[in-house]
Every structure is written in C-alpha cells, then in structure tokens.
C-alpha cells in the first residue's frame, strides 16, 4: 500500500472522527480508504454496490439462470 497525505476542512475531519469514535470504522485511514474506493467505483460503473448492480439487472427484465446451474455447467465443461 502507498501512503498519502491529504489536507481537509476541519469540519470534515471532525465528522470522520465521530465515525471512528462510534466504532463504525477502525481508524481515520479506514474511512478515507472506503471513501476513495466508493468514489472510484461510482466513476467506473453505473451502480455503486452489489445491491445496486442487482437492481440494475432487474430493470433489464430478463430471466437469469440460477448461478448454481451455471457453475455446474462450467464444472461439466471439462468432463467427458
């Protein structure tokens, strides 16, 4: 991992501190890491998380084969 140093507004810093003190995050670094990951994801995909991805696919109104069936077919690809 690479170390970065950032300057942020005091008010943002205090909000982050509250999140750490509440126990939701282990450290300030963890909050910043999570925020960067979410920011990059938002720019890369039409959905932010797994739940949004599933909702996006539901709007396609397609019937998806059960994943277990797909996986079983893949495992069978190599068999005689």
């Amino acid at each position, binding site marked *: 991992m690479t170390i970065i140093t950032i300057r942020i507004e005091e008010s943002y810093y205090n909000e982050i501190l509250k999140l750490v003190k509440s126990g939701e995050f282990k450290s300030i670094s963890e909050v910043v890491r999570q925020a960067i990951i979410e920011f990059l*994801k938002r720019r890369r995909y039409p959905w932010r998380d*797994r739940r949004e991805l599933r909702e996006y696919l*539901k709007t396609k109104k397609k019937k*998806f084969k059960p*994943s277990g069936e797909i*996986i079983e*077919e*893949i*495992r*069978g690809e190599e068999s005689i």
Partner: protein
Amino acid sequence: MKYLYLEPSALFKAYIPEKGSDNVEYVLQLLGKDIMGITSRWTILEITRGIIKRRNIGELTQKEALQIINFFLDDVKEMIALKKLRLIDVSRRIIQEALNLIIEYNLYAADAIHVKTAEIYGAVAVITDDRHVLKLKNATKISVISVEKHMDEFKLQLHQLIRNKR
C-alpha cells in the same frame, strides 16, 4: 476468528438478482471483525467464466459482462482490503487431499478443491446453493448450507453454526 467458506454457486448470487441473493448479501454484510469469508482463488475463475457464459446465452451484453467482471474483481479486492474475505491458493496439499474426494465421491475437480479448502482452513460451514448441498454434504463433515432457504431459516442455521463452533 471463524471462517465461512463461500462456494461460487452462492457467491455468484451476490452479483445477479435471483433466489438466494439476499441471503448471500446478508452473509457478506456479516463479515469483518469476528467472521471472515474464505474461498479458493479458483472461485475467481469460475465466477468470471460464469459471467462470460451469461453473455454467451444472451443474458448480458458484452459491455455489461465486462463491467460486471471488473466490478466483481474490484469488490473482491475491497473485501480483502477490509479483511472480510481471504482468497486461498490452490496448494499442493489441497490437490493431494482433493484426489480422495474425486475417487471416493465422484466429485468434479472444482467441487473437490472447494470442499478440501474449506476443511483444511477449518470453515464453520460451506455456503452454497440447493443443488450443491446435495452433492457436497456427503463428501464432508463440515456443515453445508444453502442460501436458497427462506431467510429466517437460513439466518437461524447460520448463527447456530457460528455459535456452536469452538
């Protein structure tokens, strides 16, 4: 730390809307401080192949398939960084011990690798789907549970297993 083994038939459901998706999401949200998800590194290939297969049969466009593959890989990377998930390499020991499962239980090579990885790493349970519960439960002493159960029943069974594992 207690480990839950995420077999691909279950983990794949986190990225496709279908029966069991909410239960897989519940498991993934549970991971972190005391419970870690583990899966074979082989899972990455199986799910990626599964997404391409969904493109081949017309469920996904080429663009969607590539976006979902990249999202899946990023999501796994994030879960690893947050210490929620660990990928287990397919080692010589896993292969050696998986051999017996193939011979004795007529399992596919991948089924045997998943079961052996879960056993060697002391998983509390193998989380999978209905189809694979039937196939895998005879081949291992580890509890094999399906995410396709009703959510209340699934949660009850999962928490009982986590509580009872010393």
